């Protein structure tokens, strides 16, 4: 991938993703944190497009930016007296150290490992391939995923119902 456009897109999208993820941790108001989270997830969707994963990118925008962001905003609106404050707990400093060490370790391992790289992953279109994979070798996990979704939906309704 040494096309100039792809390189520029990678660096710009990575900067947007990481910067808005940092803003999620930095802003005090939880509503703004959700909006920065949406921006970060859209940056990840753009990175999927540079990786020639068009279907995943569209699913990311539909599910995360569309559904989960609205769900988070609704949860904030439904918890009005507690909801707006995004403050840290007293133990944020050890958390920062641990998170930094984890990120540094994964990065160092990723850079120093000699990966077996190939070029079969350069798809022109993935929707048909994904559909065939989901309904042939992955059909059992596919069915289980639908059961998980139904159980989660019923569980959420039961938990949130007023009685």
């Amino acid at each position, binding site marked *: 991938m040494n096309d100039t456009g792809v390189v520029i897109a990678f660096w710009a999208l990575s900067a947007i993703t990481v910067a808005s993820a940092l803003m999620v941790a930095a802003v005090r108001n939880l509503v703004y944190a959700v909006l920065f989270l949406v921006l970060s997830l859209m940056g990840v969707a753009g990175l999927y497009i540079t990786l020639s994963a068009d279907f995943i990118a569209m699913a990311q925008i539909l599910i995360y930016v569309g559904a989960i962001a609205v769900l988070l905003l609704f949860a904030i609106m439904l918890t009005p007296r507690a*909801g707006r404050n995004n403050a840290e707990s007293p133990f944020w400093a050890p958390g920062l150290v641990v998170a930094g060490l984890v990120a540094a370790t994964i990065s160092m391992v990723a850079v120093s490992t000699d990966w077996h790289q190939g070029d079969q*992953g350069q798809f022109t279109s993935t929707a048909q391939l994904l559909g065939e994979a989901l309904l042939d070798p992955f059909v059992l996990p596919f069915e289980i995923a639908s059961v998980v979704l139904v159980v989660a939906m019923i569980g959420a309704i039961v938990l949130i119902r007023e009685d």
Partner: protein
Amino acid sequence: MTVGLEHYLVVGAILFGIGLFLTMSKRNAIGILMGIELMLNAVNLTLVTFSRFADSPRPIDGQVFAVFVITVAAAEAAVALALAVSIYRHRDTIDVDRIDLLKW
């Protein structure tokens, strides 16, 4: 200047670290949930990256895994937010430092 596997993996690692920091440091349950979503996205980015760059007979499998992770993340978000609203109804707070019913 070329962009390769390692670049995407480092971006995924940084995103995972930020999500981990959010999960460990925030007091609001919804803030913790946002950290979990960021971590799941970092893992998805890594899966799609390997699907694009790794030497594999069936490179689409990484993206199938990413689809499953997105599905489970959606289910988890729905249940977790329902739990947060339910706890708020009973305890009037979703501050995880003040939800200490099980603390002895």
